[in-house]
């Protein structure tokens, strides 16, 4: 009876937390990831797959072996580039969901350049131009939603998604139609890029290191740009309070365009890496990008929209992609499995934000 009275007096509520130590933030994040992994295990269980076995396979397939490590680093390259760019866009609350197609357009532009202009160029000129074309392709595809948003008030979420579907169909059209390679025996690929334009890889791996260096450099530059420049300040003001930005006289149109040139262009660079570093030709959109544009969204989010932290989260999610491939083969699961991981982890991460900002307060009410 007495216990019941005590229980009735107990009151709990969430209060906003003002102080936040680094240790606390990190432990919340780690708890969130552990919860996410447990939930993923639960999904496996409900699908009739032994979760311990599946998670072990994911780990062994990604970070648990030398081959897995090399593959993880290979897949981290596009994630570094795209997620770094997305940090800039998301800081301004510009929800670019179209990195997938910006990557594809980068691949299209650079393939065109490689097949039509690049044959006669030495690598020292050809490769930089190849990357420049890819950047251009991604940036041009990326500024469409920026114009549509600022000038016509169209939600960038919808426009970038629609452009994803359009670009994917367009690439398929190219490779089965006008760009189908003469040397490919009727297979739906373009011809291979000239040898001089194909990116070197580290021996015994598929790590095209030029793009890797580019990705790391880009994240460092974007970090400086975001936190140490006027442009970065404007991006953050727009994101935190559009009213304040308007009051401060920030040019929305110009800033939005620039944001999407960076974000789209970075994804375009990733497209160059996939074409010139991995496949050497343009192929089906699902092969050129294994959903990097979407995985990069969570990569940026896990990295707290800080380009330097995305270098860590990018590696983590690259491991998940590689591990996902491993269990796809060993457990015969479809490619969409990775989407489940991504969805669950994103949910867990945004909920963990609440626990970062609030504390549970228990107190006894006076009766």
């Amino acid at each position: 009876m007495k216990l019941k009275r005590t229980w009735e007096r107990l009151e709990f509520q969430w209060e906003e937390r003002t102080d936040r130590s680094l240790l606390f933030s990190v432990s919340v994040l780690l708890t969130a990831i552990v919860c996410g992994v447990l939930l993923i295990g639960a999904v496996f269980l409900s699908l009739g797959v032994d979760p311990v076995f599946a998670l072990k396979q994911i780990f062994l397939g990604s970070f648990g072996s030398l081959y897995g490590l090399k593959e993880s680093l290979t897949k981290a390259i596009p994630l570094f580039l795209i997620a770094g760019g997305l940090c800039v866009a998301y800081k301004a609350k510009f929800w670019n969901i179209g990195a997938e197609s910006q990557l594809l357009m980068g691949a299209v532009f650079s393939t065109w350049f490689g097949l039509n202009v690049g044959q006669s160029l030495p690598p020292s000129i050809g490769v930089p131009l190849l990357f420049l074309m890819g950047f251009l392709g991604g940036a041009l595809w990326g500024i469409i939603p920026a114009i549509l948003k600022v000038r016509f008030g169209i939600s960038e979420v919808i426009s970038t998604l629609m452009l994803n579907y359009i670009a994917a169909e367009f690439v398929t059209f190219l490779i089965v139609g006008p760009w189908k390679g003469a040397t490919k025996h009727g297979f739906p690929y373009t011809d291979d890029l000239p040898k001089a334009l194909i990116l070197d890889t580290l021996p015994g791996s598929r790590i095209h290191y030029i793009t890797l260096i580019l990705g790391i450099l880009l994240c460092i530059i974007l970090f400086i740009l975001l936190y140490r420049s006027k442009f970065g300040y404007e991006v953050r003001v727009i994101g935190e309070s559009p009213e304040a930005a308007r009051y401060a006289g920030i040019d929305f149109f110009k800033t939005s365009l620039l944001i999407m040139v960076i974000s789209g262009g970075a994804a375009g660079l990733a497209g160059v890496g996939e074409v010139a570093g991995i496949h050497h030709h343009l192929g089906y959109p699902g092969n050129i990008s294994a959903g990097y544009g979407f995985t990069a969204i969570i990569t940026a989010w896990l990295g707290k929209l800080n380009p330097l932290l995305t270098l860590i989260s990018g590696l983590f999610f690259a491991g998940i992609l590689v591990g996902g491939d491993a269990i796809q083969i060993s457990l015969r699961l479809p490619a969409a499995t990775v989407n489940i991981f991504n969805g669950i982890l994103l949910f867990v991460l945004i909920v963990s934000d609440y626990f970062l900002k609030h504390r549970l307060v228990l107190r006894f009410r006076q009766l």
Partner: protein
Amino acid sequence: MEGLIISVIHRTCMAGTSLLLGTTGEILTERSGILNLGVEGMMNIGAVTGFIVTYTTGNVLFGVLAALLTGAVSAALHGVVSIYFKANQTVSGLALSMLGVGLAGVMGKPYIGKQLPVKLEPVQLPLLGKIPLIGDLLFNQDLLFYAGLLLAVAAWFFLKWTRLGIRVRSVGENPEASESQGISVRWTRFFCTVAGGAFAGLGGAHISLAYSTSWIEGLVAGRGWIVVGLTIFSLWNPLRGIAGAFLFGGIFVTQYLLQPLGVPPNLLATLPYGTTLIVLLVDGLRKDHRSLHAPAQLGEPYSR
């Protein structure tokens, strides 16, 4: 020629039904102030559970019911995360879309290429179905088509003319004032989100049980995202939603009409997505007219 026109209109109604159901649901959700970008995921989940349940039980109504329930449950997830935990609704919706697409891919894999033993058959309505031409076009459709139309009109009536509907709208426009009137903002928003998910689940079921009757990967193919666009196009009015949904249904059918003319199929496949952009663009030329209709607190978390 007449036969062709009838078949085109018939198939337009067929293709538009899933869009209509999804749009009505999303209008309901957004009117209460919650932006749910998870429609693609909820439709995927509805489509796959509808298919699996129908396949295993051999009863199409069980399938429809399962789709409705799983759509509602997945929307509840978005509801809890965005209402209770005040998470960013854009990101939460994206997470739901990813999760739904992934679940549909994994759960549907064993069923790829399998044919349903029964499908959602057209039901000829008594009397109305006997009207020449129109009867054949509009009153000889499957049950979800009728349900879609009825629910859209009901949703319009509910939002415009009922006390409860006015509450929903006021919660989306001015939650503080609603709360002071004794309305629970949280619960109103939660119920609207769950209801919207149930609608999206039904829309998904229509795709897998009537529009197509065998399972393929990526069956929903971005219809959920078109629904999000249609919601804006409809200016959050379910009656305009009907027009929009069947306009887009027509565009899905046009793809197959133009194919014999030699237009590459991949370019035709971009039609619905391109049209979404164009429609929003033309509509966006009158920007003020859109912002006049959008729920004022759409996507904004509410805290007491």
